[in-house]
């Protein structure tokens, strides 16, 4: 059983590090983990759930606002949703999503329709990718705990 735990812990550590190295997460995610403790053992999961729900809602708002068939595009509406998404992605350490929001905001400000549509598509892909990866990470955590081990503190650099 110990060998299994060790192996799982190693996988967890490696996977976590790779997420940072590949730019999916930044040190704000580390900050988020600091807020979890015995009193709030599911804090990170709760916040991430809220975040991903926000993604769905905001992206839907953006898509609607960018719908030209209903008339002129209201870029301030798009921008408002982008601003919100930028804020929450920044708070959870979703580095790529946040970076996309920065470009997206610029396209909104310059009323660049193609740019906005491109960003919208990318942000959709990006949050879904992150969600899958984090789910994998959480599954690893669960497996470690089920095997009777402790989830290691991963020291990034």
């Amino acid at each position: 059983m110990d060998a299994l735990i060790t192996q799982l812990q190693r996988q967890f550590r490696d996977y976590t590090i790779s997420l940072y190295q590949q730019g999916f997460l930044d040190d704000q995610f580390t900050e988020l983990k600091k807020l979890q403790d015995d009193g709030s053992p599911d804090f990170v999961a709760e916040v991430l759930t809220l975040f991903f729900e926000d993604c769905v809602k905001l992206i839907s708002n953006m898509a609607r606002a960018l719908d030209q068939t209903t008339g002129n595009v209201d870029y301030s509406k798009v921008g408002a949703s982008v601003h919100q998404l930028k804020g929450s992605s920044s708070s959870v350490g979703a580095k790529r999503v946040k970076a996309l929001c920065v470009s997206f905001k610029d396209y909104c400000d310059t009323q660049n329709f193609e740019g906005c549509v491109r960003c919208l598509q990318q942000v959709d892909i990006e949050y879904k990718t992150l969600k899958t990866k984090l789910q994998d990470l959480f599954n690893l955590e669960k497996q470690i705990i089920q095997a009777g081990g402790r989830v290691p503190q991963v020291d990034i650099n």
Partner: protein
Amino acid sequence: MGMETESQFHVLAVDDSLFDRKMIERLLQKSSCQVTTVDSGSKALEFLGLRVDDEDPNVLSTSPHIHQEVEINLIITDYCMPGMTGYDLLKKVKESAAFKSIPVVIMSSENVPARISRCLEEGAEEFFLKPVKLADLTKLKPHMMKTKLKKESEKPAKEEESEVSKPEIKEEEDPSVIEILPLHQELESEKLEPLMSGGNKRKAMEEVISTDRSRPKYNDITTSV
């Protein structure tokens, strides 16, 4: 560890975003504060006991039901909110005789020097850039202590805070006063320095977004704009 004071600091957190409210609430709880969150400036004023006149929102009167029992030691508010902004809230608090002594901290996801100066000039104690970190909150204790000090001199309450005799609790990481996690003390130690040394302060100003998170009263920033 250390001082689990019976009377904890109670912070009123104001933010229109549910997500941000959840974050700031946890951050404050983790810093051993009691938290009340509201989603608007007007709700914040209501909670404090300031009644907004229905006809003229500029006229504030103190409601007969002042929340005397709920002692707020600090208000932390988002800047960008629909209706009453954090700045508006700051002004209203500072204009009220009853509550102007409550320290107010502004948070914003946008780093706009003019905005920061305006808030500081209006009486905000600190301006935090979002996302707010645990290390930022350690800056709050000195401000909240001041209100306790005031209460101390008014009534002979028995508080065991020995740091009452240290009015100069600035950015020092004094472990006996501030409950911080050892983890972020290591990680964040360089971020706390900017408040002390001039050299780092300049560096912090240059790298406005990255290094320095919160900005206490500095006048330099207006000249560089």
